[in-house]
């Protein structure tokens, strides 16, 4: 999507595709953690699923604190 946005940018039409593509890219790592959490939960590895959930929560807190400061 990002590559498409860049290609269309020269025609003055790529901004939406770029915006969406970069947004999807940025949230991908946290989506990966969420998927890991679901996978660990399915394996009944509740301890590590809890670690993943804690990481998601703490990253949200860190983002909020960074925004406030």
């Amino acid at each position, binding site marked *: 999507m990002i590559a498409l946005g860049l290609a269309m940018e020269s025609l003055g039409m790529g901004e939406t595709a770029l915006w969406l593509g*970069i947004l999807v890219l940025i949230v991908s790592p946290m989506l990966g953690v969420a998927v890991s959490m679901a996978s660990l939960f399915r394996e009944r590895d509740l301890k590590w699923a809890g670690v*993943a959930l804690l990481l998601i929560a703490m990253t949200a807190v*860190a*983002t909020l*604190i960074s925004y406030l400061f």
Partner: protein
Amino acid sequence: MGPELLFSLILVGVLAGVTGALFGIGGGMLIVPILVIFYGLAAKDAAAISLVGIVATSVGASAVYVDKGISNIRLGLFLEITTVIGAIAGVVAATYISNAALTVIFSLVLVYSGAKMIFNPELAVEPGDCSGKRCFTYYDDVQKKDVGYQIRNTKSGAAMCTVAGVLASMTGIGGGAIKVPIMNLHMHVPIKAAAATSNYMIGITAFAGAVLYFAMGDISLTFAGAVAVGGFIGSMIGTKITSHVDGKSLKRYFSVLLFFIATVMMMDAGGLF
């Protein structure tokens, strides 16, 4: 954006992506100075673009390394929690501590780590002897066999990653550059597994900063997009190179990279960026 500018930015991303995938660093140490010096961007704008590039590198590289079983996801999740704690503390501490002094200290730590990595051998465990909850294996393409390792010093390693999080959030760089030596030297994770695990972690670390810049509209979409495309391509190339480089050589190259990063950081502390 003209094709020459687009192509050059993609190349910057490729360079950062290759380096990032090989060594487990984000590539920000390359992207930010290049964008500031050669493209005339303000440091803040370069940092925002760099974070997107780091995420792209992380996504590309960790997709391969996780699939191959080289990335230690559990270790990455655990250490990332302590890093985030450190990053939160760093945001608060940044208002009280001189950034220049911290950058110099950080540079000296990197030089020390680089020197130690050259001389420290890796402590491998025979896969047959690898049992217990802190013992892991991965298949090494160069040695063409399973490599086992026993994670040690978990608590102190986590504490050191907290400090790494403080330093990284205050200086804006160096998450992977400090975490890979911690995992390799202190926790006895082989360099390839340490770099692969770091690749998994740095995307999470970069997420917080990138999402803030994005929400505030402070990211140049075309610049970031070009660097991200290059970063992804570079990460694919880097993962292919990893399967042809042995761990000992990788450690040596990583040491050289640490010395380079330390030099760039000293120059930054001296006000050259």
